[in-house]
């Protein structure tokens, strides 16, 4: 029954939207301006944002042109002052009616192109350019008048730091690339644009510094980008999934960040950055595992403090994965592992808990995830109240009602807090926490070790664009450690981390 109706509807819709499916190759530019305009109207049929205006030269009324642009995407001032005004008031004769004269001497635009390519035209006008049609001219002028509204530069919400620059990327590709270029004022900085996505044709920019970049990675990245065949790219994650590499991995293969200073730092180490129009998140490639624990703030504070912070983050990562399982392992299987007085206290307390510890742990972890998710989605005020209610009141009540043991709450609390240290690794944390917990419940401490081994092996196996995520284990040089696990002062870091780049080695000339 449903199938029947569905088919009928499909036919109706098809005929109605058949106009949409006509590709650009059906259209052709002609010499006659009227025909061109008619064609434009038809290409952008049903898009009421398109505005077409006829501009007539005041001294020579036979001289006119049409400009087409999208309302809202253009800077009206530029159109008025630099296109309409000069065209209207300048002294033009008949013989000036050619495109070269117009583009060179009449209108004032910093960036213009002549084109016969409909594809480029559509792309241009959809980005905020203005198209200028002239009579008896097949070529069309594409004028840069981009001026769409975008968010002002503000601090990224997810990567707040205490001290340091507070700029964050916005959704405009131009603005983002500018932010990077401002920090690297050299000709070595390369920015290449690409358009990806069949329908959206999203602008994607690839940035790198020529002298230090890892060429293999760059080539691999470009190859993969060119191979993308999808309808739309809306966000960096689309790209991350498409070019990340084969297989599923709980670990990210590309580092995403909203901070320009972070990106610049990575470019200087030889990485490649991918910026996507419409997303404030910039992706850097390749991604090393240790980057999950690094933050640009490390460079804005004291070196030793930064080192300790990093080490705490790494320990925190393992704490959040291992603590629930360790608790279960000790409590349920290996009572010998804790000193006797502690053991007796925990035993006394668990007398009151009705559920077996394993089940309790699963339930509590699940509840914690619920709370966390709710806290993220709720608007500010409700979120605060909810966390108080959830955490304090319910937790306290649960303990007093003897539904859960107090030590369990503490364990969950530690797990949760440690998990917030490395938000970027959330997916792996969740997966492995439950995986190791499962093994532990099954066979105790042995299971814990097996689960942990699986985690470590998985980390070891991770690759990002041909580069291993966990680098040289067999030959660790001090140079590698100095900026990875800990941060030594700038005076001590003379060379670039040699792992990623084969090119320029020295960071500083002296020393």
């Amino acid at each position, binding site marked *: 029954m449903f199938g029947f109706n569905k088919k009928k509807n499909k036919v109706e819709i098809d005929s109605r939207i058949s106009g949409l499916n006509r590709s650009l190759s059906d259209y052709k530019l002609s010499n006659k301006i009227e025909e061109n305009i008619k064609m434009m109207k038809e290409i952008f049929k049903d898009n009421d944002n398109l505005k077409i205006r006829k501009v007539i030269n005041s001294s020579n009324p036979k001289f006119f042109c049409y400009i087409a642009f999208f309302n809202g995407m253009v800077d009206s001032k530029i159109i008025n002052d630099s296109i309409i005004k000069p065209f209207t008031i300048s002294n033009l004769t008949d013989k000036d009616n050619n495109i070269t004269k117009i583009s060179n001497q009449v209108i004032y635009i910093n960036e213009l192109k002549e084109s016969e390519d409909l594809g480029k035209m559509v792309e241009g006008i959809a980005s905020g350019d203005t198209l200028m049609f002239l009579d008896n001219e097949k070529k069309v002028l594409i004028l840069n008048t981009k001026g769409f509204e975008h968010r002002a530069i503000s601090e990224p919400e997810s990567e707040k730091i205490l001290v340091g620059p507070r700029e964050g990327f916005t959704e405009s590709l131009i603005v983002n690339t500018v932010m990077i270029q401002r920090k690297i004022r050299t000709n070595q900085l390369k920015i290449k644009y690409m358009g990806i996505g069949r329908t959206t044709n999203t602008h994607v920019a690839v940035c790198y510094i020529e002298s230090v970049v890892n060429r293999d990675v760059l080539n691999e990245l470009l190859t993969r980008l060119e191979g993308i065949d999808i309808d739309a790219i809306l966000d960096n994650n689309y790209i991350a999934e498409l070019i990340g590499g084969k297989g599923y991995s709980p670990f990210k293969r590309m580092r995403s960040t909203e901070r320009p200073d972070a990106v610049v730092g990575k470019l200087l180490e030889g990485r490649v950055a991918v910026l996507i129009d419409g997303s404030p998140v910039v992706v850097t490639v390749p991604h090393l595992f240790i980057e999950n624990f690094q933050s640009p703030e490390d460079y804005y504070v004291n070196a030793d403090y930064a080192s300790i912070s990093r080490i705490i983050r790494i320990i925190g990562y393992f704490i959040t994965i291992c603590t629930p399982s360790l608790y279960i392992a000790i409590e349920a299987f290996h009572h010998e592992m804790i000193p006797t007085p502690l053991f007796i206290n925990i035993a*006394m307390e668990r007398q009151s808990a009705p559920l*077996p510890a394993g*089940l309790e742990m699963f339930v509590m972890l699940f509840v914690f995830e619920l709370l966390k998710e709710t806290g993220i989605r709720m608007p500010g005020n409700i979120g605060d109240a909810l966390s108080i209610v959830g955490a304090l009141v319910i937790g306290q009540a649960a303990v007093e009602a003897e539904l859960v043991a107090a030590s369990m709450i503490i364990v969950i609390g530690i797990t949760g807090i440690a998990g917030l240290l490395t938000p970027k690794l959330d997916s792996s944390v969740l997966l492995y926490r439950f995986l190791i917990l499962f093994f532990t419940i099954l*066979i105790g401490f042995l299971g814990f070790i097996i689960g942990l081994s699986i985690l470590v092996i998985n980390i070891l196996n991770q690759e990002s664009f041909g580069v291993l995520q966990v680098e040289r284990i067999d030959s660790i040089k001090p140079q590698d450690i100095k900026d990875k696990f800990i941060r030594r002062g700038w005076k001590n870091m003379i060379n670039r981390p040699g792992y990623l780049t084969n090119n320029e080695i020295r960071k500083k000339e002296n020393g």
Partner: protein
Amino acid sequence: MKKKILIILVIISTLFLTGCWNYVGIDEFTIVAGIAIDKKDEENYLLTFEIIDLSNSNKETGVVTKLIQSTGKTIFDAIWDARATASNKLYFGDAMIIIINNEVARNDGISDFMNFFIRDGEIRETTIVLISKEESAAELLKTKGVTQNIISFKIMDIISDSKAINLYIKGIELYNVINILKGQGVELVLPVFKKVISNENEVVRLDGMATFKDDKLDGFLSFEEVKYFLFGIDEIGSGILTFSTEGEDNHNVTIEIKKSNTKIDYVKEDTKIKYTLKIEVEGFLSEFNHQEKLLNSKKIEELEKIAAKNLKSRIEKVISDIQKEGSYDILRLGNLIYRKDPKLWNELKKDWNNNFSTLDIKIDCKVDIKNTAFFR
């Protein structure tokens, strides 16, 4: 896809198998703190366990303990029998002491028990083995602790190696008992406890040590004797030396032993073995009521000499007593020969116990007073 769902289902279902195999929640078993071994009659052993009663323990009352008794033909039999009384499985991982009735030790020997305990994986190898001088070993567990509710832990504290408790007798752990029982040229000596009344309460009290021949109890050494005996085997932890000075100022002097070192050496002359024990003691002067003259180096030296002489004579007496009565090598002299010269030991092994009483043992003592506390 279907396979993945199946796997996930299997994984989730293990959540509910929370009773699977060795999963034993903390609240599902009974913690045993100490074990006492008696004999009920000719055939059966009577075991007493001090268990920690978790259901009655809470923050106000502290930890509460109970006693459980069970009988059986062998030790393991008796442990199984305990399941009838205790609602949960007994957990021995925290058992700190094993008390054996002295009669049982004398008649049956302890090597069966030791073998069982060391074979069992749950009981720790560091459990301390003791002898009870009372009628039954269980008597000791029925006493009340002064500072500690759990009697076994209390006994453990008294006998433990920690510096906080400065008694000089150290408990012997299970694995060492095994080593000594099967060792060459050593005999076992175990600490002995008895019950006394103090403040209308019954409390336990350390009361010297018991000597063994092979695995059977042989005799007792009193508290005082033990002190000097321990000098002989270099196991004195700390302790005090009291003696009185001669002459006009006939005072009691007490020296607190801080460190003691015994070097044993032997010399083989013809068919006789001559042993020399060199004992060096470092101590603090604790009690000395001096006259008008304050202490000076000469006085200290005098005291040291008197102390050494005193010590030497007492040790000599104890050792000669041991040789006469016991005739068993609790001084581990044979072991010394075994370690240094196994061939010689092989020759002497057979008659060692008989010859023990005739061994020539010479003692040299030296006392160093390092400190006189707060006073001159």
